[in-house]
């Protein structure tokens, strides 16, 4: 199971929090959604990185790759 999301900066307390955007079983679906997520959020200055990962269990996922937001 592919896990997609982004690291969001909370400007009030300067903390970074991970937000999961979606989960996909099919690789190409996940890749398309990843690129779409970048396109949708690339102008948001508070989005610092987009991440790509794998779900290890219902309660646990592992981030395996990052794309910095170049805003």
């Amino acid at each position, binding site marked *: 199971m592919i896990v997609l999301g982004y690291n969001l900066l909370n400007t009030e307390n300067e903390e970074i929090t991970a937000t999961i955007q979606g989960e996909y079983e099919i690789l190409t679906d996940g890749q398309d959604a*990843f690129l779409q997520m970048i396109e949708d959020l690339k102008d948001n200055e508070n989005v610092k990185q987009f991440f790509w990962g794998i779900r290890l269990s219902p309660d646990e996922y592992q981030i395996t*790759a990052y794309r910095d937001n170049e805003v």
Partner: protein
Amino acid sequence: MPFYEDIKTISGNLVVDGTIEGKHVKAETITANKFSGAVEEEYRAYSENITMTSYNVLYTLHEFDHPATEWDIAKGRSIDANINYQLYAGTTSNRTGTIITQVEVQVPNFWNPNPIANAFHYSTPAQYWQRVYMVGNHVNKFPSNQVLIDLASPVYKSFKNLRYQYDFELSELVANGNFNGTSDWVVQDGTLEVPYYGKLTGISGSANKAQISQAVSVTAGEKYRLVYNAPVSSDLYKIIVSTTTDPADEIEYQGGLAWGAVIGNNVREFIVDVSTVYIIVQNLNAGDDISYFDDISLKQLEPRTWVDLSAYPSNPISTSAILFSGLTTGATAGTYVVAESITHGISNNGSYSFYTTVPVSAYLGRFHRDMKCRIRAKHQVGAAGYVKMQQIEINFHSRIVG
């Protein structure tokens, strides 16, 4: 005695002004560390003074390229770095937390996944983990992070417990090796009895040594483990692995396959070059000599690579499937993959500044192409002045790994 020929050997140097060609190059005869030049390549990178002020924000410590291998030979690629960090607390009050250091590689535009081997389902050692094995030693083809299964419908998986085992035992080849009766053994020049174990009594006055034997089908070129027990005393019998029922035809392997028996279990390992061997137990002396023996076992040893695959929500391999390197984890081109991540605890211990060295290493698998790499880090030390990377020394290697 079977015919054999000593391998011709050249003493001294052989200089060939041209190309060496042959119909076959025998496996395991040429080792990488005997070459010079393009076999092992070593490169380095260095940087210093990156200050990480923000909490939990990734900073790039250094970017560098891992160069394509000479002659485009597929080699095992690795990155090893030592990083000196300074935690500047700016106070003697306690400041404690972690530093997370990541080795990252950029997913290139074109990437052909490198095959590792065919993997077979073995067990489910824990929930959401599947244990599989591959025949042979393939550990050097696994990158640090993930594997890929099924190119037609790709699935990337994390893994753990990767290891090589040279001696997985296949099924028992000796029949009635524990002597529950006298069946399956051919007796010559004596009498076989089975009081609690095997007992072989020779014939009084005979010039021959009593023996029992059993033919076993084997596979030429494979490795075998012979186990045999001397339950009463040492030095009562010899055990011989022969090509016939005649002990004189013992197989010539590293000095011959004939051994004495010390009390307790005895273990021998050898490679055969025939398809049938005879396991012979022979009394040490002629005449009415008596020997005692038990638990004779012969098993083929299969070299295996074991690994546990992440199996959420279900096992990724039903029966068998080819594993590929999953270095990219399926992420799109341009994305940086975390090949390895190290979490390191840090505390100022009552000082304004505290210094520590963090080693981090990643193995990228076996391939030849250029790779863009970087090392990044973030700190999670609350209310610290800053964490500073003082120096980073990076060594990267490309080496033939079979």
